[in-house]
């Protein structure tokens, strides 16, 4: 059995979570302490199995009242795929107008997520 410490990234509380894990072929969590909410427990299970993260970046906009639109994943992606997803985001150019929530890229690097705009961009005057 091993003990692992995690810092939960679900919310700004950043709870320290201590987990005892049985080291068989598939880890079985035998004990968790420190997570102050259900989401933290769910998160730590996921973190042991396959860490997932959301990321934010921006894409170039043409014909808009600003030159960049901020974007983010609308579902978490595997930590190990972040740089591949970023490579695909960097290739994207969108044409104004753009509204918050508009999908600018689907399933980057094969991930089950969409890259959505987090800023509205109006057409240039």
């Amino acid at each position, binding site marked *: 059995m091993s003990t692992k410490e*995690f*810092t*939960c*990234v*679900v*919310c*700004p*509380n*950043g709870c*320290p979570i201590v987990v005892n894990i049985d080291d068989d072929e598939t880890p079985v969590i035998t004990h968790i302490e420190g997570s102050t909410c259900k989401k933290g427990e769910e998160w730590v299970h996921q973190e042991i199995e396959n*860490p997932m*993260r*959301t*990321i*934010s*970046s*921006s894409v*170039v906009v043409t014909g808009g009242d*600003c*030159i*960049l639109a*901020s*974007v*983010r994943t609308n579902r978490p992606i595997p*930590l190990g795929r*972040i*740089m591949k997803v*970023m490579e695909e985001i960097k290739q994207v150019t969108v044409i104004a107008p753009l509204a*918050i929530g508009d999908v600018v890229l689907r399933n980057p690097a094969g991930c089950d997520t969409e890259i959505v705009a*987090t*800023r*509205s961009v109006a057409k240039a005057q």
Partner: protein
Amino acid sequence: MSIKTIHRDVVVIGGGPAGLAAAIAASEAGCKDVLLIERDRILGGILNQCIHDGFGLHEFKEALSGPEYAARFINRLPGLGIEVMTGTIVLSLSPERILEVSTRGAIQYIQAGAVVLAMGCRERTRGAISIPGQRPSGVYTAGAAQNFINMENIMVGKNVCILGSGDIGLIMARRMTLEGAHVEAVFEILPYSSGLPRNIQQCLNDYNIPLFLNTTVTEIRGNGRLEGVKVAQVGKDRAPIPETERYIPCDTLLLSVGLIPENELTRDAGVAMDPITGGALVDDTFMTSVPGIFSCGNVLHVHDLADWVSVEARDAGRFAAAYVHEKREASRQRITIKEGDGVRYVLPQSVSGERDFILSLRVTAPWRNRAVVVRSGDKKVRRKKIVRLHPAEMIRINIGKDALAAAGGSSLEVSVE
């Protein structure tokens, strides 16, 4: 030619998270004559460049990016009939609440019934912490680099060192990495990080970026462009230990070394200031020492979460509207609040005793399993147990007026036990 003077009931200075929430709250409290002034060409303030998520967990129960969080507020302004002046700078503010404002091509005066100060804060620079060395390009405050990258599509460098482990520095370590830069390390002069624990995890650990505590930059080198920095461990007195000094080649140094409330206008108006927070002294309505001038958000004291800025600003906006409508005088009764052991500052610094209020405070050092205790003389008003106390995390405690009345007295002391 005379400069014209216009009248507005409530004037909010600053269109960031504080100003937006204050203007909306003033309007919702029944004030139909609210003016929001912003110097940038768009509303939202610093939220516009904070494209990472984590905003709104308290306000909206979901994780939003900064621009989305701002949009939730901005979208409500037209429906409430709130007047907005963007691209407008307030040049001066008098104790009589006369604002001198400059828009492109015009200067005008505004007589305000009440003013809400919501100008936010700015970053400490290299000059403020006096790093020795040459003066090459490539040394940026973390927020300036964030603006270049997220707003202007300008990448600021390739090999990066970051001084200061505040949240902006940590966020930028990740952002620079995602944009293809190599982040060498983050250096923090204190024995602990001043950023949120989750940002240590998701911005540094996730990308194998080391964090060196008790370490600072001792020299900046470079002709034209930054070529490298010298770093050294510091002793208990925070003085660098020469034998630990080492040289790290890099072309970019980001500084995340603290924020300063931007209070030039506040001082202009003769408002009494708190030397610790760098903001105004306020009462339980967020009114300053000058009647009718209110303060909230990062211009009052630097927050770690935008959500708490919104909550605080909403109160300030509501009380500003009430001041205009009720011509409310400052309460005669005053209970002053002072910092005791383990507490760096408290806010508000005085209360009326007439209403419940939220006490905001920061502690002086990290602790575990302590209690924050509010006392009037030897009588206990409130005691709150807290598992993790950290100087980087603001603590908010609600204090009931009944508990205050039961304890009596004219001053409170807040301490960590």
